[in-house]
């Protein structure tokens, strides 16, 4: 994409240095735990050591005698306000604090409020709880068997642990296609439960002002506006009214989806602040974070792929059991209980497909949030990209060749997939060719053959994924009924500087920089002179927040649209100033000039000044605009990744030797930031493939509940990622851009697993 702006303006395509960095490198970021308010007290939480138990009694007397302890809040306390249960985003219900039963290990049981962190921790230690342990249900398959212990006895008439059934595609048509397929491969694929484990854990400072019945909550949330509405809905009956609720999401130390849900801790802290009339701070520690916060994945999939003998894929069928823990608290759009899993036909022109899923309750923490991934797309991509390799192995075809043979051809875009999506744009062969060139694919295959002959284990894995991000068009996408638009409000100051506020919330993606670049691109105001603000519900326009790679596709588009509205008004002012008609003006970056007389122009700065000092009679003063952008479609970024692994024959240790990632996210706002997003995404794609898993023993103990066992890769485990780009703009996005924050997390795992399987394929391994 040709640059339209100079480096001074830094519109799209410039690797502008980040505007947020000066505070972070000085230790001047302001995260939730840095917030200290006068009179603030601290909350710490008593958690269940059992995965499933009756609570017989909670003894708080000793805790209340600990110096500094002010109060102990239990489920009974909250029950008094009818706040002991809350709704989940998926219309299920979740305990805030239990009254009689705990449903997973580390569930909140009581909260201790004290004058210091230390006293609160001592108080937690002094709370004695009598439990009657019960045998937990840990396996979703067993949970769905007849006769399994019914977990949700709170739900009247509930007789099993089945949550919902979901399906997409034509079952009969797909069955028929499978009958006709010359080759069918079938594989069970489990994607383990994992946790985003952002380095900053979750927490909040809830500050209820009794006099004004006003609540301010500083909290680690990716979606402050939606949270405000949730609080108003959940606690409206106790006097919290939406106009008197202010959610402030300050600097966020990584989100990745884990800071979308409303966790019980937040609600208890708010309740505690209301009860005590003091600001209450709650910050979870790492073990609480890993053991109680929402998980991702946990899909047990059985996938089948049918093809002709020559390798034309004809049919795909996937049956999934989804383990949702004790409540469905997934963060998906309402209509999509399985997220966007039906993207599972991937980058391939498969004519017949059917997928179905059943969700089960188990004695595990609730969730089903993202792990840097748009609504279950990682699971879908893993399934199809693994199956392509399984098929290649079956057909003894090179996996690259099989992919080329089945890619949706570039000329078929926009492409209607058999499971109902309209892919906006793509050029899959170009991305794979580029990746193969970058890594030297043919030479690697030769090397592999030589190594096999010597008994060495080396593998090459490919993943050619298609993402689906930017939720979403209002006709289909809402969360709790709120449509998934996003918003931007821009004000141009008289001196030609700007403030732009968005309904999203950066957690490290660099919105303060990239949004400013969008405004710079559209208005020619230097990005350095555009102040970007997000995260304060009192000042920012309503938006659904940052997750699922939706900021650029939705809020970024809103930014462009708001800027264009401003340009419309600016044009009127320019016509007034230049004394010509609007039709005689042409826009070049940063100025309107008279057609045929380029020396006659007014810069955006001139116009901004005039908007406050010399605007046309009859026109309102000022230069500002708001846009609530409802995307016409999702965006479909894609890419091809190739991974080379070496496996130590003696120990089985896998080492990633090289990893090339070619991404296409349409037009790029800031190449430096996009590369950073890809690097991070690749690392979070590698992590669950090789290191991370939240696992449980048969008693429901979380055996990866700290960083001792939840193995987050460090600098020695992470390879030097190599990146490349192709550019296929989105036809419907105002800037031609697509979301990119999660592409690499979605695309990397199958490349790595395919490489590992490839290293062992000659020994008969087909899947791991």
């Amino acid at each position, binding site marked *: 994409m040709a640059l339209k702006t100079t480096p001074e303006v830094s519109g799209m395509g410039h690797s502008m240095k980040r505007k947020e960095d000066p505070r972070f490198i000085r230790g001047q970021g302001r995260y939730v735990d840095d917030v200290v308010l006068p009179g603030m007290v601290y909350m710490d939480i008593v958690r269940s*050591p059992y995965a499933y138990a009756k609570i017989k009694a909670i003894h708080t007397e000793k805790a209340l005698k600990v110096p500094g302890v002010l109060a102990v809040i239990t489920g009974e306390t909250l029950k008094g306000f009818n706040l002991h249960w809350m709704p989940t985003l998926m219309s299920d219900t979740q305990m805030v604090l239990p009254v009689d039963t705990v449903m997973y290990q580390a569930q909140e049981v009581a909260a201790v409020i004290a004058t210091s962190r230390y006293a609160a921790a001592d108080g937690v230690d002094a709370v004695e709880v009598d439990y009657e*342990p019960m045998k937990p249900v840990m396996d979703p398959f067993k949970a769905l068997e007849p006769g399994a212990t019914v977990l949700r006895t709170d739900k009247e008439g509930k007789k099993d642990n089945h949550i919902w059934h979901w399906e997409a595609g034509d079952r009969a048509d797909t069955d028929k296609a499978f009958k006709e397929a010359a080759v069918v491969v079938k594989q069970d694929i489990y994607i383990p439960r994992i946790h985003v484990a952002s380095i900053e854990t979750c927490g909040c400072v809830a500050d209820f002002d009794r006099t004004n019945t006003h609540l301010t909550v500083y909290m680690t949330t990716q979606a402050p506006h939606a949270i405000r509405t949730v609080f108003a809905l959940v606690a409206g009956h106790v006097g919290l009214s939406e106009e008197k609720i202010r959610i402030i999401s300050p600097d966020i130390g990584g989100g990745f989806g884990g800071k979308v849900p409303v966790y019980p801790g937040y609600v208890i802290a708010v309740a505690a602040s209301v009860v005590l009339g003091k600001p209450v701070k709650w910050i979870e520690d790492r073990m609480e974070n890993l053991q109680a916060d929402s998980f991702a994945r946990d899909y047990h999939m059985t996938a089948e792929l049918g093809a002709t003998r020559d390798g034309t894929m004809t049919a795909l069928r996937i049956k999934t059991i989804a383990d949702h823990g004790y409540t469905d608290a997934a963060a998906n759009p309402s209509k999509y209980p399985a997220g966007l899993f039906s993207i599972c036909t991937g980058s391939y022109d498969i004519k017949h497909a059917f997928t179905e899923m059943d969700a089960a309750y188990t004695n595990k923490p609730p969730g089903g949030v993202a792990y840097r991934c748009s609504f279950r797309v990682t699971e879908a991509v893993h399934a199809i990209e693994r199956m392509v390799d399984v098929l290649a192995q079956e057909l003894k075809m090179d996996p690259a060749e099989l992919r080329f043979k089945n890619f949706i051809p570039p000329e078929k875009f926009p492409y209607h997939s058999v499971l109902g999506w309209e892919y906006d744009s793509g050029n899959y062969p170009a991305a794979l060719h580029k990746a193969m060139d970058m890594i030297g694919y043919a030479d690697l295959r030769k090397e592999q053959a030589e190594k096999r002959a010597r008994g060495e284990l080396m593998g090459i894995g490919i993943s050619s994924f298609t993402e689906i991000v930017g939720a979403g068009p209002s006709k289909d996408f809402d969360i709790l009924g709120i449509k998934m638009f996003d918003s931007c409000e821009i004000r141009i100051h008289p001196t030609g500087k700007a403030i732009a506020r968005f309904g999203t919330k950066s957690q490290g993606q660099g919105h303060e920089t990239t949004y400013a670049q969008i405004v710079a691109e559209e208005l020619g105001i230097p990005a350095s002179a555009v102040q970007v603000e997000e995260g304060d519900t009192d000042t920012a326009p309503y938006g659904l927040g940052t997750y699922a790679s939706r900021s650029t596709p939705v809020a970024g588009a809103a930014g462009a649209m708001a800027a264009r509205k401003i340009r419309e008004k600016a044009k009127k002012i320019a016509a007034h100033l230049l004394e010509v008609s609007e039709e005689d003006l042409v826009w070049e970056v940063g100025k309107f000039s008279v057609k045929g007389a380029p020396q006659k122009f007014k810069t955006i700065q001139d116009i901004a000044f005039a908007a406050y000092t010399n605007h046309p009679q009859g026109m309102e003063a000022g230069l500002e605009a708001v846009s609530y952008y409802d995307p016409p479609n999702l965006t479909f970024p894609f890419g091809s990744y190739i991974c080379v692994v070496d496996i130590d024959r003696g120990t089985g240790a896998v080492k990633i030797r090289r990893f090339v990632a070619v991404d296409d996210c349409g037009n790029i706002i800031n190449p430096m930031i996009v590369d950073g997003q890809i690097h991070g995404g690749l690392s979070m794609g590698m992590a669950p493939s090789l290191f991370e898993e939240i696992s449980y023993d048969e008693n429901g103990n979380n*055996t990866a509940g700290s960083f*001792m066992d939840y193995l987050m890769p460090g600098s020695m485990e992470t390879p030097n990622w190599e990146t490349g780009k192709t550019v296929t703009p989105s036809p419907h996005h105002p800037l031609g851009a697509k979301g990119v924050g999660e592409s690499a997390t979605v695309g990397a795992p199958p490349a790595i697993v395919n490489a590992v399987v490839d290293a*062992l394929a000659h020994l008969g391994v087909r899947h*791991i």
Partner: protein
Amino acid sequence: MRIEKSLVVKSTPAAVWAFLSDPHRVARMLPGAAIQEQIDPQTYAGTMTVKVGPISTSYRGQMRFERLDAAAGVAELVASGQDVRGKGGAEVRMTSHVVERAPGETEVTFVSDLNVSGILAQMGRGMIEQVGDQMFQIFADAARVELEGDAARSGVTPNAPGATGAPGAPDAPRAPGVAAASAAEPIQMVSFGAKLMVGAMGRAVRRPIFWVVAVAVVVMLVWLIRR
């Protein structure tokens, strides 16, 4: 998880049975344990402290004989306890079988189903199993002293025909390590099962791919080499 242990002593089945069915006597063989009261003829309440280096955990709970069949030599008990600081708990169902192996030589087999919850199960990283082994070893040695009398004490049969403890485990009841109190101290215990509350546990976990690969590769290579 399931744990199986056995112990052979130079004593008669009757003497061994009398010992095993008396919680107070068994208690004395178990470091850190104390019976506090007898609730009914089959049920006892007590406490148990397990100290492993700097880590210590105190449980309080109950032990109940579900079956005491002297004729068959089968005892079945259930013991459950909760960590006094709310950090976890454990339950064990143990069946012991007393069989005469030779005149004057009796074998006791113990089959236990153990469930541990809480932080020790989470973070014990295999250690619980080893602690259980060491404790069983201490118990077995102490029981042998109790049942065999002076012969054992003089060290004639210090380690054989020993319990199936882990290699390298201390071979005398006075071995330090596991317990704060030595077995010789005439106090304390909850039950035979209670010590196994911290006994072994296995983890049926699905590991991240790396480890699956690691194991798969090695198993396969071993198999290929042997072939």
